[in-house]
């Protein structure tokens, strides 16, 4: 298996950002009530993750080499600005897309998945292409987790659950079973 597809699949299923690393839990808990919104949130995340990965590769190669202690600050500043720029551009270029994605974009800044991606990518010394594969894998992984969660929640909405289990308690227990399911992917990528 090539290095790039290994990174992609590892980030998507084996070490899924949400279900194995707990990154991006805010949208996972917050916007997973409907499959459609979950899909849009996922799309917005993939988009920002890819942009972040490219920017971080650039920053690491040219600027942070000499000042590693400025990493955290520069990453968060870049992510915040990036989301703002993307929001403005989409608003100008495609008002329809903005209406669909718009309200999810700001939520992404404080999504740990984005900063997590930047930090993991740096710690693992990924080059531009490896970083891209990592970002795509992480993004599709997030979307997968969101959509799975949303489809289960749509079903449980009609179910007769005890009143104490309505809300976050139930969501977390569902997440636990999903996470356990994803553990089954471990070993998928070892070539021996």
């Amino acid at each position, binding site marked *: 298996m090539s290095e790039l597809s290994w990174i992609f699949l590892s980030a998507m299923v084996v070490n899924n950002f949400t279900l194995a690393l707990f990154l991006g839990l805010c949208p996972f808990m*917050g916007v997973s009530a409907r499959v459609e919104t979950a899909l849009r949130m996922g799309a917005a995340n993939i988009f920002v993750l890819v942009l972040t990965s490219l920017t971080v590769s650039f920053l690491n190669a040219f600027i942070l080499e000499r000042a590693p202690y400025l990493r955290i600050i520069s990453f968060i500043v870049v992510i915040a600005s990036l989301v703002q720029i993307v929001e403005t551009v989409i608003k100008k270029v495609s008002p329809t897309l903005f209406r669909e994605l718009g309200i999810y974009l*700001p939520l992404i800044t404080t999504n740990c998945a984005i900063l997590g991606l930047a930090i993991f990518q740096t710690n693992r010394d990924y080059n531009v292409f490896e970083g891209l594969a990592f970002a795509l894998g992480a993004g599709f992984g997030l979307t997968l987790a969101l959509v799975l969660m949303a489809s289960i929640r749509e079903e449980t909405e009609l179910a007769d659950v005890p009143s104490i289990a309505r809300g976050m308690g139930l969501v977390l*227990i569902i997440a636990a079973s999903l996470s356990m399911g994803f553990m089954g992917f471990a070993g998928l990528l070892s070539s021996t």
Partner: protein
Amino acid sequence: MRETTQQEDFLRGIWRENPVLIQMLGLCPALAVTNNVENSLAMGLATLFVLCGSSLLVSLCQRFIPGEIRISAYILIIATFVTVADLSLQALVPDIHKALGAFIALIVVNCMILGRQEAFASKRPVGRALLDALGTGAGFSIALVMLGAVREVLGSGSFLGVSLFGPSYEPWIVMILPPGGFLTLGVLLLGLAWWQERRPDRIEASQRRQAGSQEAIAVAGIATSGRPTPTRGEAG
């Protein structure tokens, strides 16, 4: 909003508005590093430090920070304290730093911290901002240590590394793996809901939890746009 007493400022964060158990904020570190008590405690204290430092500075500088760029300024302040915490932990307790890994840097995006700046520290005098930060940070640490204790005792059969049940105990390995994090918090919340259901003020309590998750979304919304995002029905 009704003004609160100093005692309330401190105690509110520990129980009534506990960031993890009631408001569901800062879940990412609360689940990711709580596979043993030591890591949970270290994460709790690091977050407490960052929260106190940021609240102190934000409260001191509230007059000098223009409203339009306040969120950028808060993030800058928080990121500075996180870098300080990151470097100090690495120098003082390198083994714990290695165990927590990237999650120390991720304190920056803990919605709880930004939330306290926007909702409290930026509008209050220094002393009260600090009390609030101490209370919220302590509440966060207590929740983390609770999760860490349950997971370590069941998952490794030990507490703070000291074996409890002897060699014949078969540890529930799943508890120290990711699913165990979700499961422990889920069961804890179910227990909390059951307990609240038996009390007369239950309606108020469940409303507060609803408000908490709405606040998280709103805080995230303000983060980029500088204005509150209208929250929609499906969120929270």
